[in-house]
């Protein structure tokens, strides 16, 4: 498994009596784009928090590019090259769009290069006209873009996107899908999304989570035909 970017082995976390993530074995190959779906409470966001070190697993291991990063600090994991766009955009409300991108770019680049990257990303996410406005006043959709741009500016090797299309218009969703495909040419990605149309636009392999565990992993077409998956989305499997 030397070509795996990310691998989890029996990853679990327990909150009191609830096991929010149960024995997840997950492998992501180089340049892979994986969609992660599942009903609310399936453990997708919790899994992301484990991968980024915001939560510490109660059991299991996380291996990123051959390094065991289990239990490492969030900033140390970010330094290894995992970037995340969180479900509710996590931004610096008092700072401008440009400052967001610069902060992300500057950590790994000298000042001159960081400025260039900032301008480049501003163009790429189409926010050049809003570059000097405080982020706190932007709409939810625009905040999504700012966070996406911030993650890109840091140029992490693995990018986690938690519901990148939420709160976007139909056109914006299409643009986001376009951007995700473009990012995927150079980066590995894991995308959590509820919007099935969006998933269909980008997905090759899909992992379905249910009640904290991986239910099934297959191509999008096979997943759509899978009766169990349909049932849990309609609530027939209880629990969710």
């Amino acid at each position: 498994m030397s070509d795996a970017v990310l691998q989890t082995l029996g990853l679990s976390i327990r909150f009191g009596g609830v096991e929010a993530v149960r024995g997840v074995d997950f492998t992501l190959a180089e340049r892979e784009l994986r969609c992660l779906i599942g009903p609310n409470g399936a453990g997708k966001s919790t899994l992301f928090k484990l991968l980024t070190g915001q939560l510490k697993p109660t059991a299991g291991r996380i291996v990123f590019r051959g390094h065991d990063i289990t239990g490492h600090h969030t900033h140390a994991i970010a330094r290894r090259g995992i970037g995340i766009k969180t479900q509710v955009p996590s931004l610096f409300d008092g700072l401008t769009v440009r400052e967001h991108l610069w902060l992300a770019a500057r950590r790994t680049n000298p000042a001159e290069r960081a400025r260039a990257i900032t301008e480049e990303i501003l163009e790429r996410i189409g926010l050049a006209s809003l570059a000097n406005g405080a982020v706190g006043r932007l709409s939810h959709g625009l905040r999504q873009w700012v966070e996406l741009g911030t993650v890109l500016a840091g140029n992490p090797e693995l990018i986690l996107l938690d519901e990148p299309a939420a709160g976007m218009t139909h056109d914006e969703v299409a643009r986001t899908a376009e951007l995700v495909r473009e990012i995927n040419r150079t980066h590995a990605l894991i995308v959590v999304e509820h919007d099935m149309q969006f998933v269909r636009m980008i997905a090759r392999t899909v992992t379905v989570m249910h009640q904290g565990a991986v239910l099934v992993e297959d191509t999008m077409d096979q997943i759509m035909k899978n009766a169990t998956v349909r049932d849990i989305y309609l609530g027939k499997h209880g629990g969710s």
Partner: protein
Amino acid sequence: MVVIALGVPQVVDQFGLLQLTIFAAMCILALSLGFVWGYGGILCFGQSAFFGLGAYAYAVTAVDLGESTAAAILAVLVPAVFAALLGYFMFYGRLSDVYLGVITLSVTLIFFNLMNSTAGDAYRVGKARLNGFNGMPSLPTLNVPGDPARLLDPTETFYLVMAFLVIVYVGLHVLLASHFGRVVVAIRENEARCELLGYDVRLHKLLVFTIGGGIAGLAGCLFANWGAFVSPNVFSLTMTSQIIIWVIVGGLGTLVGPIIGCLIMQYLATTLGTQQLANTNLIFGIIFLAFVLLVPRGIVPSLRALGARAPGPSRVHDPA
């Protein structure tokens, strides 16, 4: 600021000059908290602990060595090291904001109690007797480095303190405009995002806290030198309250604010002190309450918001 500083000794008398010297020293102290709290977002209620440590470090070393240069350097280093140590426990222990405030306040009050109980011959460092609540009188004042016999006169001291004030003010601006400073402000805005971007929040906070401690120590050194005297009152609740009030009145998130707040309150304290009209604590308590309840953002940010005619989020970094 520089022009005013150079011109002042020509127009004010000796008393006025001494008064301005202590105001300037206190402005340095105000800046230290304005930086730590207003930009670093670290709720430090014990800035007077570092101020007092600086004052005592200066006093003890100056008495022991009879020369002020090493004393002045130690007055910055000792509080900075102490801040680093305390900060390590607080930030790496991940204490929340409010706990931080209470712990720092407790630290300074314990120092107050400690120093008050050092009366007697047993409590001495080398030749220097700590003297408990009576304080240490007749301290050697600042001399020209290397020449203990050549003491600075009041005008020279004023220039020196003003120079330090300008250096600290400009230095903090430069620092805030740097990569480090921008990360510090970003941490205040959103710690979690900073970590997800790969910045070590604990380390940044620790550095801010340490720098703030060192600056407060410098102010303490200048204070001890000004009166040639230091007593446990540097650690008192009144002292630490004053620093908080300066920053609250002037406004968080600016460097001018704490200076303006400090000048207003120092002037008020001096006037009240000489007129004996009302108890200083009483007036300060009322002003404190009034600002928290009515002008929570402080004078400078409120005026700026008024000027911009938009009540948006507080400005994060402003070169003014």
